[in-house]
């Protein structure tokens, strides 16, 4: 086994999980909603790539972004908007409902066995080969896209008017509305961004492994969700780091564990999660002195 190779692959997958985490953490930050249906945005973008595989690659990617963004916007408009003042448990159940409804649709439309979105498999070719370490194009793409989108989100939040309003709404929604910040607009923008993130994740995942199944986005979303809880959910940076860490660990264990133990991969990841939450319940990346109560 080659450690450098293992680390490089883990960093690549960590970046993809970080993108899932940004999408989840933005929605949670602005409206305190844990969006379990986020994975369906990824799946929707994945199936768009399946359907659009005959188109030139840039068009197919653009189309997947459009579909994921439209679905994200629609989800908020149709399902979550009217529940904005409801109990957190109600909205959480609503996100489950949306997720399962969409999953049923994928199952009916595309079947359980999965379809191939074979657009970007050429990215699996080596870009850099040095000794027995191979860095594939897809790993570079994961790092590059992850970095660019993270940077773009940071710029949007810190340098634009709508970004400032989103940060204000995340800190104190009512005070923000009292100043004239439009709740609908801020929340819609957060959902649109999460749609963009979901499409990027779908493109990167299918480049690595083209099979899209009805649970394509669900697994990565649940793992990323665990990651952002472990990292610290109330801050975008800690949540993103948590997402990265869980993706990193997942890839690392996947490579380190012997083949016959690989079925225990989720158990190994969750064992680490349990230990972390016992030792540091506010999240490992939360600043010293922050309390667990502050998080929610």
């Amino acid at each position, binding site marked *: 086994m080659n450690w450098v190779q293992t680390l490089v692959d883990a960093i690549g997958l960590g970046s993809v999980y970080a993108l899932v985490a940004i999408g989840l953490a933005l929605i949670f930050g602005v409206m305190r909603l844990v969006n379990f249906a986020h994975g369906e945005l990824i799946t929707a973008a994945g199936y768009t790539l399946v359907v659009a595989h005959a188109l030139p690659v840039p068009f197919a990617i653009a189309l997947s972004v459009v579909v994921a963004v439209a679905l994200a916007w629609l989800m908020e408009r149709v399902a979550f908007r009217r529940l904005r003042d409801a109990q957190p448990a109600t909205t959480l159940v609503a996100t489950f409902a949306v997720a399962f409804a969409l999953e049923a649709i994928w199952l009916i439309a595309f079947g359980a066995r999965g379809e191939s979105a074979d657009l970007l498999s050429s990215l699996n070719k080596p870009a850099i080969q040095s000794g027995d370490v191979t860095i594939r194009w897809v790993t570079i793409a994961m790092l590059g896209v992850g970095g660019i989108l993270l940077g773009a989100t940071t710029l949007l939040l810190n340098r634009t008017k709508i970004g*400032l309003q989103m940060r*204000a709404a995340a800190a104190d929604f*009512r*005070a*923000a*509305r*009292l*100043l*004239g910040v439009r*709740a609908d607009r801020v929340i819609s923008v957060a959902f649109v961004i999460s749609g963009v993130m979901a499409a990027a994740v779908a493109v990167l995942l299918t480049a690595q492994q083209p099979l899209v199944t009805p649970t394509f986005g669900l697994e990565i979303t649940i793992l990323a969700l665990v990651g952002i809880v472990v990292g610290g959910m109330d801050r975008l940076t800690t949540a993103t780091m948590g997402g990265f860490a869980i993706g990193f660990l997942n890839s690392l264990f996947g490579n380190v564990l012997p083949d016959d133990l690989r079925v225990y991969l989720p158990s190994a990841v969750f064992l680490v999660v349990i230990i972390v939450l016992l030792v540091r319940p506010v999240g490992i990346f939360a600043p010293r002195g922050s309390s667990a109560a502050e998080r929610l």
Partner: protein
Amino acid sequence: MPEAAAAATPTPPAAAPPMLAVDRLAVAFAGVPAVREISFEVAAGEMVGLIGPNGAGKSTTLLAVMGAAPVVGGEIRVEGASLRGRRTEDIARSGIALVPEGRHIFAKLTVEENLELGEVSRANGGEQLEAEIDVRELFPVVAEFRHRAAGALSGGQQQQLAIARALLARPRLLLLDEPSLGLAPSVVEDVWATLRAIRERGVTILLVEQRAQITVQLADRSYVMNNGEIRAQLGPEEAGDMEKITTAYFGAGAEEKR
């Protein structure tokens, strides 16, 4: 004959509607009444006080004006236009600003960012205030620490920031909820001085306070609220009459109990 009919019931010259007219306003939280059919008016350029003990319904009244409390009856009109059923952010954007109780500044954002958020309403057709207020001249502290995190300011400075932020929307009507709460006496003096300065610049003010005497003295008129109702109305000439204020505050019978 229409003309004769008109002469028989002479209409007074159409007076401009008051800046704020609250008419039999009732607010209830889950069936429990917090404000019980109160009515009062604030004319343009006036400063009106709303005093009373904790839980009297003062803050709820202000939140109801902002569309942030469950109104169950009555009307709230600003310059004749009803606010009922309108969203908080739309009310803010129509030129009504609230400095909320507890200030609600954004502690992790910088002072400058907090002020920028104050301009959100102005950028969208606010600009109701005729007299330009130079917020940085009125609040030198705010200008001095503009790049600091707002949470690092002292309580008095945070209050100044909260008021400055509300004024940046250039509101036609400014609602203040206990601006003196939790501040040192010397700092409270600064708050009153600020309110006087704002009022001199023509902003209509509705001030909710627990400090009864100073409010009665500052305001053109003060209403005493208790248990969701308006119990009395006091003018500035009554500011020296502590006994009268106390009676209005605690209701008849308070004298005997003491």
